[in-house]
């Protein structure tokens, strides 16, 4: 079997592979620091609306759910699995304990390179210097 235009094809393939794999080899050995979201001090609160493992994986679906319940159905209270009742509100509930977006939310979001647009509208607490 003969490869027509062999040199051009091979050069083209090499260039393609180089560009395609650029993110892998350019980032090799440069692991981003593991995120360290700042825990809420025990003096402020001891319990979140769900346990840490759940919140870590599913807080976005919980917040979506809250959003729909509050805006569309007008239900504003959430009774969590442990029997406590919360006001379903990002600004009025979540941010009351998690007072720093930079030290909490951004930690993981930046690490995972996700940019939720919650903050386009919902005001975040002023960062303490």
């Amino acid at each position, binding site marked *: 079997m003969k490869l027509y235009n062999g040199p051009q094809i091979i050069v083209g393939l090499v260039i393609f592979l180089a560009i395609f794999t650029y993110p892998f080899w350019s980032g090799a050995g440069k692991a981003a620091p593991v995120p360290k979201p700042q825990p809420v001090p025990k003096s402020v609160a001891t319990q979140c609306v*769900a*346990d840490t493992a*759940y919140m870590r*994986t*599913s807080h*976005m*679906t*919980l917040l*979506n*759910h*809250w*959003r729909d*319940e509050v*805006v*569309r*159905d*007008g*239900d*504003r*209270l*959430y*009774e*969590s*699995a442990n029997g406590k009742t919360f*006001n*379903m509100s990002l*600004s*009025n509930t979540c941010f009351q304990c998690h007072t720093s977006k930079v030290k909490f939310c951004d930690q993981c979001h930046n690490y995972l390179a996700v940019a939720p*647009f919650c903050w*386009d*509208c*919902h*005001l975040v*607490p002023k960062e303490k210097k």
Partner: protein
Amino acid sequence: MGVDRRQFLKLAGIAGALGLGGSVGFQLLKPGSLDAAERMPTPYQMVFPKSQGNSEVMPNPKALKGRRWGMVIDMRKLTEEKARAAIQACNYYHNVPDIPGKQTIKWIWLTGYVNAFPEVENPFADPEIKNARFIAMCNHCDNPPCVRVCPTKATFQREDGIVMMDMHRCIGCRFCMAGCPYGSRSFNFRDPRPFIKKEYPLYPTRTKGVVEKCTFCSERLAVGKLPYCAEASGGAMVFGDVDDAGSELRRLLRSRYSIRRKPNLGTHPQVYYLV
């Protein structure tokens, strides 16, 4: 293999067509019948459940409950000063930006008699009425054209009659602005944040590209409080249940002559002006 590629594509196509067509059919035949189906967990929700364990959501027991919310504006009591206080309270607590020019945002504002009631023309009307400044706001119509035209249900009507905006869903097509016969809707032509002089941290701002309007302070009703404008107006704006014959609002409507904006359009506006 049981299904070859061609068959699979055919089946997928048919399923897709049925999926879209089917859900539309449901909505047409029996509005709301899909809600139950939507509550069934999708595979995504099984991986990321909406909530944990046996948690549940409910309304706040302190919430004000009405069958049909409405507002009465007493033009004898509404001085310019009181009106400005009401507008200021609304603007501050809802982070309504102050954008100069024709791309401005208004939830509640002052306008002339001929502007608010263009078809109630009467050159010899009582000058006190003719020269008065009227409050204009969303009328929370019983038959709202904005809800009818919205292609995503981003604007919808709650059971208590409030015409609500879901800013998370709005695509910014501005059909509702063309539909509203009262000019009560505003579009965020730009990012509004730089135009908010003092932010109220407990209420969201809006983002560029969505439509917004007065919500009858649904966030206040939910915690058992009256709308900001009603509270700040010193009794000139009375909020209440139109369906409750014993309410203060109905007593006022019985006691004095009231007018509504463009009732001839059949939108059934729920803001009444006592003149």
